[in-house]
């Protein structure tokens, strides 16, 4: 019989944060993504910090685990904007990712190059960004993704149909209860309206135990040890595959080294593999090994964010809607400019993080800790963004492409 598998999927991403951009900077040839004065928005400084705290130690740990346990495997997605930053500022960190992928125990998952929400605004642009990501992954890692995830794990029936036609084997999505209803997330499913595509749904309870609750000393299960966690997983009496999806930065950045997260990572695969019916699989291995047990209908968009599991953290308020509509409103003119620098700046502004920084829904609750932002307030985020948008428009007018 086939073993029961953990599908551990990690997502690595850094945006190009917008620096302080005043209305008086419009038309002055100022770089949008260069912030020398404020370390929170200084992309190189943030990257250096995350490399030291997370990428380097996590890559090292994962490589050890791969050498130690022949059955240990992971799936990884890495955005184009992060690869670009690593190429520019830390090639040796990119090398350590390459080393990991070269073991053939790491599957690369496809997505948009710019970690954007283009799927919901411009299908043509979305296709471009997916292709750009495929090209970059081929160039850097020599791999062709066969599994897809959309930004923030956003997903609906339309995305499934798109992925099916584009030839992907599987899509990753949130195992959200209203969608699953009575079903368990621990199986392979087929999205409605697709021919061969399969769906892997995140077990959010078990994923978030690591990603969000691990270091929370007020959590009833704190401290979470590898054997306790393996015990929970072994106790699950259904399913073929347990899908643990989380940010790569969970290790060392969201959960600090001092929380014991790296010790947990060191010991957990061994604990799980003690049971000989247990194994690890990459996402594509899981969908190759198991048949879909049922179809899943997702008529509205789900994501892996917040208690709402929707796009409201990115598009929930009028500032966010204005900003993103303004940005995609320039699509045609920007693309017809044939000015690569202009197009690339426009694409970097599509990164979903920019809209997340404008979210006001937590701001009132005083829950600043839940609010990762390089800016003092969502209003500052919006002002910087809109001023860069005006600058894009200014550059278009300079080219005679008045809007």
């Amino acid at each position, binding site marked *: 019989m086939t073993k029961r598998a953990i599908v551990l999927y990690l997502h690595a991403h850094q945006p190009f944060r917008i620096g302080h951009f005043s209305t008086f900077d419009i038309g002055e040839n100022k770089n949008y993504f260069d912030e020398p004065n404020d370390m929170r928005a200084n992309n190189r400084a943030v990257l250096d910090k995350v490399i030291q705290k997370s990428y380097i130690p996590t890559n090292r740990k994962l490589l050890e685990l791969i050498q130690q346990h022949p059955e240990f495997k992971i799936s990884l997605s890495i955005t184009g904007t992060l690869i670009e930053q690593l190429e520019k500022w830390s090639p040796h960190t990119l090398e350590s990712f390459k080393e990991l992928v070269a073991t053939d125990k790491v599957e690369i998952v496809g997505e948009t190059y710019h970690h954007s929400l283009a799927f919901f605004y411009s299908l043509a642009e979305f296709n471009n960004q997916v292709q750009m990501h495929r090209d970059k992954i081929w160039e850097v890692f020599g791999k062709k993704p066969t599994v897809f995830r959309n930004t923030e794990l956003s997903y609906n029936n339309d995305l499934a149909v798109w992925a099916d036609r584009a030839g992907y084997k599987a899509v990753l999505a949130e195992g959200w209860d209203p969608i699953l209803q009575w079903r368990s997330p621990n199986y392979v499913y087929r999205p409605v309206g697709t021919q061969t595509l399969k769906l892997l749904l995140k077990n959010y309870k078990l994923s978030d135990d690591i990603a969000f609750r691990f270091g929370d000393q007020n959590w009833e299960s704190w401290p979470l040890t590898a054997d306790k966690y393996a015990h929970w997983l072994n106790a699950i009496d259904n399913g073929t595959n347990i899908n643990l999806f989380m940010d790569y930065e969970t290790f060392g950045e969201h959960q600090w080294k001092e929380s014991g997260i790296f010790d947990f990572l060191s010991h957990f695969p061994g604990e799980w593999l003690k049971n000989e019916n247990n194994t690890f699989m990459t996402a594509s291995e899981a969908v190759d090994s198991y048949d879909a047990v049922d179809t899943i209908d997702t008529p509205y968009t789900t994501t892996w964010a917040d208690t709402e599991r929707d796009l409201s953290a990115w598009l929930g*308020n009028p*500032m966010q809607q*204005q900003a993103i509509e303004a940005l995609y409103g320039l699509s045609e003119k920007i693309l017809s400019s044939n000015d690569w620098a202009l197009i690339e700046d426009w694409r970097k502004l599509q990164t979903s993080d920019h809209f997340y920084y404008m979210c*006001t829904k937590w701001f009132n609750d005083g829950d600043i800790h839940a609010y990762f932002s390089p800016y003092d*307030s969502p*209003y500052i985020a*919006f002002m910087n963004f809109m001023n860069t948008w005006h600058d894009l428009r200014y550059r278009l007018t300079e080219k005679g492409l008045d809007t």
Partner: protein
Amino acid sequence: MKILMLGWELPPHNSGGLGVACYQLCEALSVKDIDIEFVLPYNEVHSIDFMKVRAALSHSAGSLRISGIAYDSFKYTDTQGNEQWLSIFDQQKLYEQAAAQLTGYESFDIIHAHDWLTFKAGVLLKQKTGKPLILHVHSVESDRSGGNYGNPLAREIEQESMLMADKIVAVSQHTKNIIIADYAIPADKIEVIHNSIGKIDEVNLSEPNSYKYLAALKNHGYKVISSIGRLTIQKNLINLLHAFKLVTNKEPKAILLFVGNGEQETELLLLAAELGISRNVMFAGFQRGKRWRDAYTIADLFVMPSVSEPFGLTPLEAVALGVPVLISKQSGVSEVLKNALKVDFWDVNEMANQMLAVLQNQSLKNELIVNGSKEYESMNWSKAANQLEEIYAKAVRGVSG
């Protein structure tokens, strides 16, 4: 518990936020088992039922104000060409003497004095009665002088009194830091109790706005920025004018409305002319009641870019009336108000940038209004009253810290 409260003003005879803060704080305290007797330096009829109001001196609020207001400490006045210290010092002295003559103070548990004008009286009464003295600092001399040294006599009164006090209450962390820096008072003697805001009456939208001309201009696409407060160095209005000049370069249909008076009025008028923006800058003078309120509601943006502001009530009033606000990071209110734009007082370009952003983006403006209103709904004085009740209890038990 019985509190002898020494204050300088109460609405409607107040010259600014000091009187409002005292009034609303006492109202919140009166809900608890706390009796307050509030001693004023003037004699007027008040319709206040939650505490006893007593006049230390027999003259009217109007005649007192001729000698200066609670904020006039550092200035020379220019009467008939003669420069002299404002007689506010004499008033302060009269109040001290009158307070000493008060009878019946034996029954009080605590003396609680608000701002420097009443501090000497507080110290005197402490010496006479041995009761604990709490000084409530709504502003210090360096605030009132716009970050300068100010009047050495006022500083002396503040420093001596603070050394003598059993406990000091500061209206913000900003003010606490200044007290430590200026007067070398130990940090653990100072508690921060942020001010809050009481409920503001609903605006009757059917009544026309008093600023009829501005309302008409707005129908023609003009945008109004309001500054409500004294025209004084502390409020950083020179920088505001320079920033507004930059705003008009990009948005010629912008109007800056000043409501208030003060020693900088002429200087500001001249500067506006020099910058070529006289047509865009309006001075409405000091206003109360409907005109004061309409100055908020006519605005697309309220600004308070003070050099140093111990707390700052006006931005909360603006938020309460559904107006977006831009405040300086150097204000105490910025410690409690989240849904506001914030800028360093010296950063003229950024100030202009943020003003323009609100004038040009309806969605930013709306989002500030919606979230600001929610935040205002959650504000009240009960937290401050609870903190103060605890300080009273400790003071009575003789516990410091």
